[in-house]
């Protein structure tokens, strides 16, 4: 038996970032992230199935490439809730709980596109990347999942181990707008 108890600590617990009108960074609650993998990448449109499975429980469905999605929410997902979600996706898709492995960061402000453009080549003009659009991309050297959740608000999802490093990069990228 282990001599010590494993302590669960938030990945970005002590991180502080800019909070100005230009750019502000916030670590989002470590609720849940469920990766959804379609049975076939070129399967018919599953948006109806996904929306039904996600339900009204303040969850969002973000596209992540052909036949793949992330269902995210701010509240932790219980074992039963995950089982229900997983069952609702069958037989079209498979759910994998990634809540422990991915961290979400909220970036917002009037200069947010200009800040993010320092790290990614994705066209972030609201015309080309409207609210609700997602993209997997590189932000600097870190692979991230980027979603525009409101007109001047982006959600960045990153592997947990990269969260702190990405946070430091974002702080540095935001410095001139703070």
């Amino acid at each position, binding site marked *: 038996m282990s001599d010590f108890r494993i302590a669960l600590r938030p990945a970005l617990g002590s991180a502080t970032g800019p909070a100005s009108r230009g750019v502000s960074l916030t670590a989002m609650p470590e609720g849940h992230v469920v990766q959804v993998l379609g049975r076939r990448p*070129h399967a018919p449109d599953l948006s109806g199935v996904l929306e039904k499975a996600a339900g009204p429980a303040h969850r969002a469905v973000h596209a992540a*490439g052909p036949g*793949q999605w992330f269902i995210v929410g701010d509240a932790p997902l219980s074992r039963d809730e995950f089982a229900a979600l997983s069952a609702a996706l069958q037989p079209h898709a498979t759910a994998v709980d990634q809540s422990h492995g991915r961290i979400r960061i909220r970036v917002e402000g009037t200069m947010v596109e200009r800040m993010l453009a320092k790290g990614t080549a994705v066209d972030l003009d609201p015309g080309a990347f409207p609210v609700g659009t997602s993209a*997997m*991309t*590189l932000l600097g050297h870190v692979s991230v999942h980027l979603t525009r959740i409101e007109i001047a608000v982006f959600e960045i999802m990153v592997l947990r181990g990269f969260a702190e490093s990405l946070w430091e990069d974002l702080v540095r990228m935001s410095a001139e707008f703070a």
Partner: protein
Amino acid sequence: MASLISCPHCGVRPKEEFAIKGAVLSRPAPDAGHQAWTEYVYLRDNPRGIHREYWHHTSGCRRWLVVTRDTASHEVELCLDAAAAKLAGVRP
């Protein structure tokens, strides 16, 4: 090298997001013999002009693509999802 790849799923992305496997070659039959397998595994042309390669969009949609590009002018002529092209019967 072509610096912008027009991924059929993600749109135009920089080459840093991709990993390149190499030339598109057809795999010999298991009993094709030593010579055919040696050529398939080790020998590569270094063409000037149109070149077809497998690219993996590692930091994007994570799909295998078949990129047809010009090694002299760096222009990308065609970019297809490898599995979709195979399903549609397009010889990539």
